[in-house]
């Protein structure tokens, strides 16, 4: 009786773990951002937020 040996080539290849790519397209974040935009468009900002402070969002000068 022939001895059966495991067929190495039939073994499924293990998937290479993925690493996080900064700024990559992520449906989860896209969905959260769309929801945030919809809510702010609908309800606006708190009245306490000084309207005169409405300057463009830009990084602090270093």
């Amino acid at each position: 009786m022939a001895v059966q040996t495991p067929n190495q080539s039939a073994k499924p290849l293990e998937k290479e773990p993925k690493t996080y790519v900064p700024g990559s397209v992520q449906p989860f974040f896209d969905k959260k951002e769309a929801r945030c935009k919809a809510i702010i468009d609908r309800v606006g900002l708190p009245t306490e937020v000084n309207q005169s402070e409405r300057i463009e969002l830009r990084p602090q000068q270093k």
Partner: protein
Amino acid sequence: MNLDHYLLSSIGDSEFKFVSEGIQGQILKIIRFSVIDQEKRIVNLGFGDFDAETGVVDDRVVSSNQDTDKILATVAQATLLFCQNYPNALIYAEGSTLARTRLYQMALNKHWQTVSDHFLVWGLQHDLWHSFETGKNYDAFLAKSI
């Protein structure tokens, strides 16, 4: 902020990562601050688990690492760091489920003394923003660094 938190690694000036460690092992968490409206200075705060198998970030997974307080303190720390670069940003945060939003609210209640030293916080209630008060339920939060 004097709360026990994980070591943060910044990825550019709008993303951070850290590793949650608990009974389920190590879980890579990604925090992303996305500018939604330049004029209104609205920035969305999103964070979730990175799945190395799929390459996808999601926060619907219940990771059960029993380190919620430490994770939320880490997210608060990242928000502080982001606001150092963007001091006039209004950070919008909301859980992906009602239960998650409640969880954030409970953390704000618990650490309000510390949080209020660093941020002005508003809570959204019936489509109106109110100054945050402990013990009240809100649908979303908006924070600005002091």
